[in-house]
């Protein structure tokens, strides 16, 4: 129980939290706007990680500068995931926009099954080692054994993404349109907002941040397989619910609470039940405060 152990757990928790936050943003934004749990969101994250692995692995053979390769691979992952995100929205969710919510949810499960098996068949079911492209830290001399480059990168890029997203939502025209659409889709359409475009942009941003999370965590853990999206997606969803689904600061707060709980739970209680912590938190929060930590209470209407 020394201090160093505590700090490594704290950092581990913050790293996990950041990754959950990057994925949870997509869930919460999509839910906020079209009230759909995008079950396939975890798969988008997985596809981001795979794209980065493929592009990065192929470029590594050319002998380019590793950092440059990492940047190119991340960009490719972000572009591809965003493309997948908007394609899925167009094919599987748009035709169901006026259907019962159960239909859209089942359609999302279908997409999730499809994408997992698509990657499984196109690539492999084995764990693939993610190429090690990042140089080790030199500038944080006293604590460099505590924090790795990838952890540092995860914390920094999550912060940057959060700030950019806040600016986008609070101060730009698109952000205003998104807020309006999430409040009332029909009314937004009446005042001249292109709802289809807003939803597309939402999927695009959510998928892009998920892909970034996928690339960062794979370079941190060093291996990926086709199944990583499922459990990460569920946990990010738990984080979004924990913070209050639909609320962006809530998603970030929920992610950090979940990340820290898991990290300290596995560190001090038992590592066997690593995944169970998320589910137990989920059940508890839904029983005692269904609207989440920062969520608003919604009144039911008949």
């Amino acid at each position, binding site marked *: 129980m020394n201090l160093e152990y505590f700090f490594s757990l704290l950092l581990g928790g913050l790293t996990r939290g950041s990754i959950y936050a990057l994925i949870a943003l997509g869930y919460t934004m999509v839910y906020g706007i079209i009230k759909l749990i995008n079950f396939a969101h975890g798969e988008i994250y997985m596809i981001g990680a795979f794209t980065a692995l493929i592009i990065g692995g192929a470029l590594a053979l050319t002998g380019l500068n590793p950092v440059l390769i990492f940047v190119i691979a991340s960009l490719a992952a972000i572009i591809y995931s965003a*493309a997948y995100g908007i394609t899925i929205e167009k094919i599987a969710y748009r035709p169901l926009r006026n259907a019962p919510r159960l239909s859209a949810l089942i359609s999302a*499960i279908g997409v999730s099954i499809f994408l997992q098996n698509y990657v499984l068949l*196109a690539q492999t079911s084995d764990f693939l080692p993610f190429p090690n492209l990042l140089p080790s830290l030199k500038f944080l001399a006293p604590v460099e054994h505590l924090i790795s480059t990838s952890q540092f990168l995860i914390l920094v890029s999550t912060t940057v993404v959060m700030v950019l997203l806040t600016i986008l939502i609070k101060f730009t025209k698109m952000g205003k349109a998104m807020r309006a659409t999430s409040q009332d889709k029909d009314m937004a359409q009446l005042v001249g907002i292109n709802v289809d475009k807003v939803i597309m942009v939402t999927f695009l941003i959510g998928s892009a941040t998920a892909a970034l999370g996928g690339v960062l965590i794979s370079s941190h853990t060093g291996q990926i397989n086709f199944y990583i999206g499922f459990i990460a997606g*569920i946990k990010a969803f738990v984080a979004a619910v924990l913070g209050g689904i639909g609320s962006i600061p809530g998603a970030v707060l929920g992610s950090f609470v979940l990340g820290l709980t898991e990290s300290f739970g596995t560190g001090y209680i038992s590592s066997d039940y690593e995944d*169970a912590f998320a589910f137990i938190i989920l059940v508890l929060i839904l029983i005692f405060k269904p609207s989440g930590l920062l969520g608003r209470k919604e009144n039911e209407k008949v």
Partner: protein
Amino acid sequence: MFSIKELKRAFLTSLWFMFLTFPLLVMKVNTITDTVIWRWMNLLYVGVGTFFLSILWKYLLERRDAKGSDSTKNPFNEKISKYMKNKRVKTSAIVALLLIVIIYPFIMSMYQTSIMTTALMYVVLGLGLNIVVGFGGLLHLGYAAFYAVGAYTYGLLFYHFGISFWICLPLGAFLSAVFGILLGFPILRLRGDYLAIVTLAFGEIVRLILENWNDFSFGPSGIANIPRPDFFGQKLRLAQVTNFTYFIAIGLTILTIVLIRRMESSKMGRAWEAMREDEIACQSMGIDITKAKLTAFSMGAVWAGIMGVLFAAKTTFINPASFTTWESIVILCVVVIGGMGSIPGVIVGALIFILTPEYLRAFSQYRMLIFGIALVMMMIFRPGGIIPKIRRSYKFSTDSKETQEGEA
């Protein structure tokens, strides 16, 4: 038939998909040996495939939108139900079906019988989940947990006390129902998406406990050497026991169908349906939502428990890997693709779902891929499933005391 504009659009779609699938389908990187395998043929397949599919997709969407809200009606289905109203046709159909079912294991190989038993187990599981999802409208993603409860009931009770299959069968059902109520209580207030996610969490928690609580469940190694069902205390040979298990499955399937049909039209069943349509309106009509939800969960769980016991007896080995969330999702697929709320739909759905991959071995690795697509297409083009539910209407007749059933 197709204008130039549409062809151009299909061409652009296929280009888009070629772009999308490029890194995943064309390149295969091995980061250990540092080699890249290029599979350019895949790009061609995707391009040509999506070109035609996008034309088909467009056509289907247009047809759906032109048809409007009446898309759940189906002339074929209505014809069948009209025939089925005729008593003589109905009885002879049932007798013929029974004959086929009884002869089946004697003319088919042991392997075929075994597959059929599995398919029948999914019929019952589907019908059980159908109570929760189809009748009650509660999306349940943790159904495999109840299946696990049944299987472990038999496994553990036999291991510790040597209790036989026939005693465990009702015990498994009972324990499963208890678990259904236990799950039901905390989530009474939840609905829709939240409910789906909590049931998923419940399923995962049960699986994680089974996997990690070694003293209780023997962890990932599971329980082996569970005996197959015995016939009045007599041990049977393997071929006989396969047939016997098949007949048990048939018996349980028939029992399930009869009981669920009765349940559907009972007061409880109608309360479930009202709950599915609108919870708040249903509550204001004086229906006890708490009771309706708890009965739906526990009645659904009963079948999973029974099938769990049968599963343990059939495979003689259980471990947590058989009860993952994917198992729940497969059962959900059976219900949704067959037709939510429709009993014949679920039966047909389960038979198609389990038997086709067995007979089309070449396609079996694409099984889940195809089911993923099928779920999406089903929701978009045929939300009612293969055999959609026919809504019953109940009339109060003045000349007899009973309420009569009619089909509207």
